[in-house]
């Protein structure tokens, strides 16, 4: 080992006076680097990525063919046409788990200490996480739309409406991302994630993803109707002009608005919470 010239190397950089860089420039540069790190993780270990992308496809196929035969859409219409928009919303919402797992892993990695001892914009670590997870979800959404088309689902409305539907789906994912970052920071340990993974299932079924809330006991139906996942599923069904559940209520009449407001409300709550929790790592 020849380590006698560690400090005399001519190329030794000199501390860039960071005051020369605006906070925004730093945030952007550092977020790009953190995103790069996420891409390196994918390229070194693509297995979990592929599994996470294919799991929703498996669920879609299971629900469409194993259970779909016994399902009737409350308002009439094809169950697959009803199911696919719901599954798209579910996939976006379940992205929460991926984010949570990634965050708990990151906070338990020693490298976080090094990042925090460097002159980087602290929120770049979270922004990098959200860019990577959004990329993951865009790919996941395209795969699910492809799978839906393969099993016979179609959208019937104009392209602009379909794109708006995709936008609402990604908005839901973005909100769930920050909920996931916050929960990941709160639970801290990867072992604790399992508890949350189990809890997402009742939340998923207490929605209009698989069945119409009108088929549930009244109080459950109301909760299901107000579930953010249902809001997005309903709005997406409307925009794709797919069959929806029949009963008319305030939520179903304002589906698109509710689907836009729910994620925004979650973001307003969870972005500051997540950032606060993240800076509390130095306490």
């Amino acid at each position: 080992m020849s380590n006698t010239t560690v400090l005399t190397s001519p190329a030794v950089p000199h501390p860039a006076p960071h005051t020369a860089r605006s906070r925004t420039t730093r945030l952007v540069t550092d977020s790009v680097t953190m995103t790069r790190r996420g891409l390196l993780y994918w390229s070194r270990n693509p297995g979990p990525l592929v599994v996470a992308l294919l799991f929703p496809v498996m669920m879609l196929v299971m629900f469409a063919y194993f259970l779909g035969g016994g399902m009737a859409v409350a308002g009439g219409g094809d169950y697959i046409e009803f199911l696919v928009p719901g599954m798209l919303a579910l996939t976006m919402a379940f992205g929460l788990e991926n984010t949570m797992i990634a965050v708990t892993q990151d906070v338990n990695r020693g490298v976080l200490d090094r990042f925090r001892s460097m002159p980087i914009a602290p929120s770049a670590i979270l922004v990098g996480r959200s860019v990577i997870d959004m990329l993951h979800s865009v790919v996941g959404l395209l795969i699910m739309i492809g799978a839906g088309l393969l099993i016979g689902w179609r959208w019937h409305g104009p392209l602009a409406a379909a794109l708006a539907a995709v936008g609402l789906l990604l908005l839901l994912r973005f909100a769930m991302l920050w909920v996931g970052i916050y929960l990941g920071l709160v639970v801290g340990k990867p072992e604790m994630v399992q508890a949350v993974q189990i809890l997402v299932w009742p939340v998923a079924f207490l929605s209009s993803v698989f069945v119409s809330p009108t088929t549930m006991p009244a109080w459950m139906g109301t909760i299901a109707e107000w579930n953010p996942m249902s809001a997005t599923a309903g709005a997406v069904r409307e925009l794709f002009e797919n069959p929806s559940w029949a009963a008319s209520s305030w939520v179903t009449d304002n589906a698109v608005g509710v689907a836009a407001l729910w994620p925004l409300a979650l973001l307003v709550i969870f972005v500051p919470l997540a950032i606060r929790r993240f800076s509390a790592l130095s306490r």
Partner: protein
Amino acid sequence: MRSSDDADAITIEGLGKTYGKKEALAVVDLAIPRGTVHAVLGPNGAGKTTLVRILSTLLRPTRGQARVAGFDVVRQADDVRYRIGLLGQHAAVDEELSGRQNLDLFGRLYHLGARGAAQRANELLEQFGLADTGTKAIKKYSGGMRRRLDLAASLIMAPEILFLDEPTTGLDPRGRTDVWDSVRSLIGGGTTVLLTTQYLEEADQLADRVSVVDHGRIIADGTVDELKSSLGGDRVDVTVHEAGQLDTTADVVARAAAGPVTTDPDRRMASAPVQDRMAALSKIIRELNDAGIQAEDIALRRPTLDEVFLHLTGSEHHENNEREVTA
């Protein structure tokens, strides 16, 4: 911008940290001159890591203040961060990525740009003998390699001030000497180093001054020599074959010793502190020969951390850190 005394790389005043009710750091006052190596020596739970984490901006102090390179660690954290390197107690690298990918990412995060970061990564891999590790993920490195890469990562900015938290704990003797060599070359380059250790020998090898900490307080402070002479320096242990010879042996040892001789009949051993190691040793060997006594073993050793603590606090401390130089 630098308001504190420019001669000091680190100044610490009344620094303390309390976790809930647990006082990890009570009150610490310390000034470390530029270009020197300061060792913080203490047992498990003494507060070493807490001190390093506060100084490297990872942790906010509960009270008091600290300036590193002239900047306040809380209010001017970024100024501090551009000027320090940190080798934490546990590896702070991305285990999933290769050594090169790690250094490259860190270089970018120090805003060296893509080219600058790649170039710096190359240099450091070269200098630390890690250039041929290819694309192997760090989780497949040996402990020594990992520590070297970690050290390389903390040197990306050729920092003015380097923090090393137990840099050689868990390394084999070879890995330990490697790290010591790297640190010595840094010292030659004028870097100020604050290192924590549980080994008196490590402080002895590397540091100009030592602070002994226990229960979150500095209980002794001085040069290594001062500390050692306050303990009576090195110790010699002479073991003989026959218990009957122990009294004569003790007399021989006493004539070369710098302090009281203790004898242990069970182990047939006489021991005492000595001032000039080699002179004392040859004197003992000569006089034992003259007296016709055959020694089973003669050992010179540094005072152990146990003895430092025994001396400073009067309480035994559990870690055993004995190293023998058999003559």
